[in-house]
C-alpha cells in the first residue's frame, strides 16, 4: 500500500511540476524559482552487522530504493524514501524453520544539504529516520518484525544531462549510508533481547536522479 502511495505521489509530482512552473514563471516568484524536486531510483545493496539477529539470519539480495527530494536551492532539503529487498533465511534458533524466505521493506524521511563541488559533481550528506519491516512467509500466515532505523549517509551526484527541455537535469547518483536499528517493541526473553533487537547496517546504492526546477 505504501509503495502504491509512494508511486502515485512521485508520478503526480513529475506530471504536475511542469504545469506549476509554467504558471509561476511569469510572476517571478523567487521561492519557486529556487525550488527543486528530485525523484530518484537506485539499485540498493544492504548488509546488516554480523553477530546480531538481523546479520546472522538474513542474507539480503540486491534491492531497490526510491527517493523524493524536495529542496530550495541554498537551503537544507527534505527527502522521503521507500525501499525493498528480498532475503533468504540462514539457519537460526529463533524462527523455528517456519519460513523459507523473507523480504524487507522500509520507508522514512531524511534531511540533506547539497554542496555543489563544480558544475558536474555535488555532494549531499543526509540524516534520517525510517521504519524497517522484515516480512516472513506468505499471506495470511505472515510474521513481521519492525525496527526503527536512524541513519546518516552521503550522496554523490554526477550530472549526465543539464537543463533538458529547460525543465530537468539528469544525474547519476551514488549513495552510501550507515545506520542503527532498534526493534524496541519486539517481545523476547531477556537473555536474547540485545542480540535480536539491536543491529547496525551499511547501505550503498547506484541510480539515476532527475532534478526538476
Amino acid at each position, binding site marked *: 500500500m505504501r509503495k502504491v502511495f509512494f508511486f502515485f505521489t512521485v508520478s503526480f509530482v513529475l506530471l504536475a511540476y511542469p504545469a506549476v512552473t509554467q504558471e509561476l514563471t511569469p510572476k517571478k516568484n523567487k521561492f519557486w524559482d529556487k525550488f527543486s524536486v528530485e525523484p530518484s531510483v537506485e539499485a540498493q545493496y544492504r548488509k546488516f552487522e554480523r553477530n546480531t539477529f538481523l546479520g546472522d539470519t538474513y542474507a539480503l539480495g540486491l534491492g531497490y530504493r526510491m527517493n523524493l527530494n524536495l529542496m530550495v536551492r541554498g537551503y537544507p532539503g527534505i527527502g522521503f524514501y521507500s525501499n525493498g529487498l528480498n532475503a533468504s533465511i540462514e539457519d537460526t*534458533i*529463533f*524462527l*523455528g*524453520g*517456519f519460513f523459507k524466505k523473507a523480504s524487507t521493506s522500509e520507508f522514512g524521511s531524511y534531511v540533506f544539504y547539497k554542496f555543489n563541488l563544480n558544475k558536474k559533481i555535488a555532494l549531499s550528506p543526509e540524516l534520517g529516520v525510517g521504519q524497517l519491516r522484515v516480512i*516472513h*512467509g506468505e499471506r*495470511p*500466515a*505472515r*510474521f*513481521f*518484525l*519492525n525496527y526503527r532505523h536512524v541513519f546518516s549517509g552521503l550522496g554523490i551526484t554526477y550530472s549526465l544531462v543539464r537543463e533538458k527541455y529547460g525543465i530537468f537535469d539528469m544525474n547519476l547518483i551514488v549513495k552510501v549510508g550507515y545506520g542503527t536499528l532498534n*526493534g524496541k*517493541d*519486539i*517481545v*523476547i*526473553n*531477556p537473555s*536474547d533481547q540485545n542480540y*535480536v533487537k539491536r543491529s547496525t547496517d551499511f547501505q550503498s546504492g547506484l541510480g539515476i536522479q532527475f532534478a526538476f526546477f
Partner: protein
Amino acid sequence: MLNVKKLIGPFWYVLLFLCVGCKFYVDDSFDTFLGTLINESGLPASDVELIFTQELEFTDNQTLVSRSFIYKLTTDETGKFKFVVPSKSWDNLYFLEIKPPFQFEIDFFGEKELRNYIQFSSTEKDKNGVLILGNIKVIQK
C-alpha cells in the same frame, strides 16, 4: 427499510475482527520455552537429545512419536534447554519428545507415569513471552 448508516458501525467491527483474527503469527513477538532435565538423583541430565515439535502421531504399537520437528537439540552440561519460536495467535500446543533409553517421569493426577513426550501450551507465558517448564525428571531404562 434498510438503514445503511446503522450497519456501518458493525461493519468496521467485523472488518477489524477479520483483520486481527486472521493473523496467524503475532508480530514482533517470540515465545521462549526454558527448562532443565534432571536424572533420578536430581542431578542435571546432560547430553540428552530432545525433539521440539507440534506434530505427534501414533506408531503401530500405539506409541506417540514426532512426525516432524521444529528443533532438535542436546542438553548442555547443566541439563538446560531453550527453544524460541515466533508467537502464534492460535495453534499454541507444543510437544517435547525424548528418545530411548530415556523417558520423562510425569505426575499424572497424582500417579507417576513414564512417557516419551510432554506437552505444554505457550498461552501460559509471561510478559517476555517466556514459559518456564522447570525441572523435568528423566529416567534412563
